[in-house]
C-alpha cells in the first residue's frame, strides 16, 4: 500500500440547532488528510511500506501528550484521566426517558483516531441511552470543536447517525437553551481501527458560547455502550492556524494495523471490576473545602 500525502480539503459542516428544530449550516469547517479505502493515513506517523506482506514497524519520537487535541482545549479532562474527579470532568449519564442518572464509564488507552486515551460509557445491558457530558467555560467565539465517537452494539451495525454531539446550552433535565450547536458528522473522516468504526464530529462554532457550557456526546441507540476520544473545544483566537487556514489541528493516525479497542477487552475490564453497580445519585452541591489533595508523607504509628 503506497501512502498518499495529498491533502484534500473537505467540508465539515457545523450546524446550529435553533429552537423549533431548524438547523442552519454555518460555514465550512476544517479539512482533513486523505483517505484510502476508509482508513485515514497519517503523514507524520512513519511507515506503512510492506516487506513480504509484513508491514515494517516504525517509531515516532517525541509524540504529543495530547494527541491531536490542543493544550488550549477548554474541556478540563479531555484525556478522561480523572474519572468523575469533579464537576468539571466528563460524567457518564444514563437516560431512561424520564431522568438522568450517573452511571459508570471505563477509560481506555488503546489506539484512537485522536491519538489520545478515551472512555466508554457503559449501558450494562440496560435499555438506556448514554451521555458523556462535561461542563466547560465558554466565552468569545469562534471555536473549533470536535470529538471521535462510536458505539458498541452487538445487535446491529453502528452508524454515525446513532450519535449526537452538542456544544453550548446542552442541558440535561431541561430543555436545551438557544445557544446550542450540533457538531456534524464528517463522513470522509470515518476511521476503522481493528473491527471498530470511529466517526468524527467536528465543526466551527462561529458564535460566543455561554460561560457555563456543556459538551454533550449522546448515544441515540438504547442499550449500546458509548465510546469517545479526543473531545475538544478550542477558541480559534488561541489557535490562529484554524482561522487562517481552516485546517484540522493535526493529521489523524493510520491505525489499521494497530491494536484496536476490542469489544472483548472492554468487557473483560467490566467483568473484573468488582461491585460495578450504578451509583444512582444526583450531582452533589459544590464543595468549598480546602482538602482535596492527598497528604504526602503521613506520619503514623509503626
Amino acid at each position, binding site marked *: 500500500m503506497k501512502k498518499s*500525502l495529498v491533502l484534500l480539503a473537505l467540508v465539515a459542516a457545523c450546524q446550529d440547532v435553533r429552537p423549533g428544530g431548524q438547523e442552519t449550516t454555518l460555514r465550512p469547517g476544517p479539512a482533513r488528510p486523505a483517505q484510502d479505502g476508509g482508513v485515514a493515513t497519517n503523514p507524520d*506517523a512513519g*511507515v506503512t*511500506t510492506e516487506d513480504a506482506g509484513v508491514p*515494517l*514497524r*516504525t*517509531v*515516532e519520537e*517525541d*509524540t*504529543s*501528550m495530547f494527541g491531536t487535541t*490542543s493544550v*488550549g482545549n*477548554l474541556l*478540563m479532562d479531555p*484525556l478522561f*484521566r*480523572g474519572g468523575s474527579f*469533579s464537576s*468539571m470532568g466528563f460524567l457518564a449519564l444514563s437516560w431512561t426517558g424520564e431522568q438522568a442518572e450517573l452511571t459508570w464509564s471505563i477509560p*481506555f*488507552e*488503546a489506539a484512537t483516531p485522536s491519538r489520545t486515551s478515551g472512555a466508554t460509557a457503559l449501558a450494562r445491558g440496560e435499555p438506556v441511552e448514554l451521555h458523556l457530558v462535561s*461542563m466547560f*467555560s465558554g466565552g*468569545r467565539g469562534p471555536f473549533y470543536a470536535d470529538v471521535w465517537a462510536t458505539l458498541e452494539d452487538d445487535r446491529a451495525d453502528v452508524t454515525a447517525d446513532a450519535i449526537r454531539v452538542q456544544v453550548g446550552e446542552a442541558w*440535561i433535565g*431541561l430543555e436545551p*437553551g438557544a445557544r446550542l450547536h450540533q457538531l456534524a458528522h464528517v463522513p470522509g473522516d470515518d476511521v476503522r481501527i481493528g473491527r471498530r468504526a470511529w466517526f468524527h464530529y467536528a465543526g466551527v462554532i462561529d458564535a460566543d458560547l455561554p*460561560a*457555563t457550557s456543556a459538551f454533550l456526546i449522546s448515544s441515540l441507540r438504547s442499550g449500546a455502550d458509548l465510546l469517545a476520544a479526543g473531545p475538544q473545544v478550542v*477558541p480559534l*483566537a488561541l*489557535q490562529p*492556524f484554524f482561522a487562517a*487556514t481552516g*485546517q484540522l*489541528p*493535526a493529521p489523524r493516525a493510520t491505525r489499521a494495523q*494497530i491494536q484496536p479497542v*476490542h469489544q472483548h477487552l472492554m468487557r*473483560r475490564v467490566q467483568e*473484573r471490576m468488582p461491585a460495578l453497580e450504578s451509583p444512582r445519585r444526583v450531582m452533589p452541591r*459544590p464543595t*468549598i*473545602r*480546602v*482538602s*482535596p*489533595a*492527598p*497528604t*504526602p*508523607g*503521613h*506520619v*503514623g504509628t*509503626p
Partner: protein
Amino acid sequence: MSSWWCSMRCWLMPTLVLALMVGAVPVRAAGFDALGRLQLSSENILSVSFEDPEALLDAGARFYDRNLNPAPIDAQRLQRVITLSDPRPLEGEGYVYIEPREDDVSSLGLDVPSVDGRVEVTVWVRAEPMLPALFVVYSTSDDPLTGLFATVTAVATGRRTSDDWVELSTGPVDGAVLGIPLKQVVIQGGFSDVVFDALEVKRVGDRAFGDDTTCTQANVASQCGEDGECIFGACVDSAVVWGAVPYTPRHRREYLDRLTHIFTRVHANRSAVQRRGTEFAARLAALAHVASPRRFWGGVADAVHFFRDHHTSAPVSYAALQSSVPSVLGRESSGVLGACFGLTELDLLDGGAGFTVFRVDAARSLLGDALRVGDVLESIEDEAVDTWLARQGTFGTNAPSDPAADAPWTAVDLANVLSSRASHFSVLRCESSTSCNAPTHIRVDLQPTVRQAVLAARGLGVVEAFTCDGRYAPSVTTPRPRPDDGSDAVSHELLEGINTFQFDGFTGGQSWRTPFLTGLGDAPEKVLFDTRLGNGGAAALAEFLVGLVRDQSSPQVVLGVSRPWHTLDPDGYYQSLLGCVTNPEPPLFDACSGTIWLGAREEPAVASVARIAWVTTADVSANDFVPRLLRGRAGVRILGPTPLSGAYGAIVALPPLLPGEYYGGSIQVHDSRFAASSSALATAAYESGTGVIPDETVIQKLSHSLTGRDTLITRARAWLTEAP
C-alpha cells in the same frame, strides 16, 4: 506559545513537508533495527527479553495481584503469560501478555542488580486497553513492596511504534536513597490485560552525592547538585521526593502550557488571575527545559504558591505520596516534633509577633522533652525564621488567597515542615512566666535523629503525630474526636452560661448538624463558635449554620460565578446570572450549574441569639463564607489574629496528566460577590483574595502562654459577658 501551536505553524513550512516525505520511507529509530525490532543494548545493567521463564525466575521475578499482594509464581505460570506466537514481537521472540482473572496476577516484579550510580529504567508497553505502569522500588526487604521505602513511577518518553507500543521511562534515578538500594522494578496492571516487553536498566552516570552527604535548605544546590533534594538534613535524589518529570522538553512544555491555560483561562479567582496570572505563566514557561525534579516540580509548586489561591494546589505524584523522604510531613500535623506552633504576640519580648510552641507531647516526639510550651522560634538552620520560610512555596504548600492570612496557616504547618526540611532550629525560652529579659537560647537538633529513625523504621512510622489546630487550648472541656469517616467533629458544651461550639469545618452528616440544632434550639443568649482551624466543607452545611444564626439585620446573599475563557468579567455577564439566586434546586446541568449560592434561601430559624463570638485563626473556604455572611449582623463579633483566607468559590480537582500522578492539583472555579440583597449583587465587587477582617484582632500572648491562658477564648468569653 504552545507546542501544538508551533506544530501547526510548521505544517506550512517547507521543512515539515520534507519531513512528511521522509516519513514515507523506513526511518531507523534509536535501538531499532531495519526491520523495526528493538535491540537490547549489551551495555545495560539489566536487559529482559521476556522469553525464558527460567531466566526470569533467576532475575527474581515475582507475580502480584491487582492489589499488589504477592501471587504464586513458577516457570509454568510464567510460561503461560509469555507470548511467542506473535510474528512481530517488539523485541526478541516474545513478550508478556497477562490476562488477569479473578485473584490472578496483573503485575510482575523483577530484581534490579545493585549499582553505584544513576540508572534509567525503561520498558515498552501496549494498551489492552489500558497501559500498564512501570515503577521502581527502593527497599531492603525480602518483599520489596511490603517494605517500600521510596518509589518512582515512569512517564512516557514520547516514543511510540506504528503498532502502538509505547515506551515508559523513570528518567535518571539514583541507585540508592540514603543507603536504601533500588531493589525492584514492577510492571503493574489493573483490570486491563497487561502487555509489555523489553525491560532495560541502563547506567546513565555517577551520583552527585553520597548517602551521608548532609545539607541545609540554603546549600541544597551546592551540596546535592542539580537533581538532589535536601530531606531530613541529607541529600536524596529529588525524583523520589517529587516524582519523574515529563520526559522531553516538548512534554514539559505541553504539561506547563496546559497548567498555564487552566490557570489563566479557567481559574476564576479574579484577583489572582489579574494580578499574578502573567507572572505565573512566565514562571512555568521558564521550566520547560528543566529536567531536575527538584527544580521542575519545586518550580511548579512555587508558582502555584505565588499564584496565591487557597483552593489551588500543585499536582502530587505517587512518588511523593508514598515516599519515606517526603517534601513535607503532611498538613496541620505535629510531625516528628510532638509539638504544635501558633502565632503569638511576643509581649514579654519586643512586642512583635512570632511563632511559639502551643502544645507539646514528649511521648509523641522524636525529640523527647526538647520543647516546652511558650518556647519562641528564633531561627531555622541559622537563618532568620522568615528567611528560611520564604522557601516554603518550593516545598509544595499552597498559599492563602489573602497574604494577610499567611501567619496562622504557616503556624499550623510549621512542625511538619521543620520535621522533614530542617536539620536544626533554635528557640528562646523565657526565664519565668512573667519575664523574658534573659532568655535561654536552645538549639534543637533534628538531624541525624529523625533521619536515623526513619531509616530504622524503613518508613515514616516513627511517631504518632497529632493535629495542629491553631488552638492554644480547646474551648470545651472534652473535645469530641474526629469521626472515623474523616468528617468534622462538632463539640458542644454549656460553659458558664455560654453555649460553646468547637468545630473545624463543614463536613459531616446529621451528627454534624445535631449539636447545633440542640444548642441553638432554645435561642440562647450567648454563643461562642471556636473555629480556629477551618478547612471549609459543604456549601449545604455552611448554609445550614448561617440559616440558624442569621437574623433580619444581616440579609446578606452571595453569588459566586465562574468565568468565560477570554475575560474575567465581560459586560452583563454577572447580571445575567443573578436569577440563579432564586433558582430552585438545579437539575443535573443548567446555566446556574456554574454558580454557587449561599444566603437567605431559608427563613432564619433562630433569630434571637443575642450575642455571638466567632473565634477564628486558620480559616478558609466555607470557613470564609460563613463569617463573611455573619459579619455585620447585630450582636456578632469576629475575633482572631489576622484576616481570614478569602477563598470565595468552589474547588475542583484537576485530572492527572502523567502516569505517575496521583492527583493533578486543584483550582477555584468561582469568584463571589456579597451584598445586602440580590439586586445589590450586580454592583458589588468580587472578593476572593480579601479575607474577613476580624472585628477585634486578638493574638495569643506569650505571657498568657506561659501561664496557661488562652488569650482568644478568654477575650471572647469576656466580650460575651460584657453588657451589650
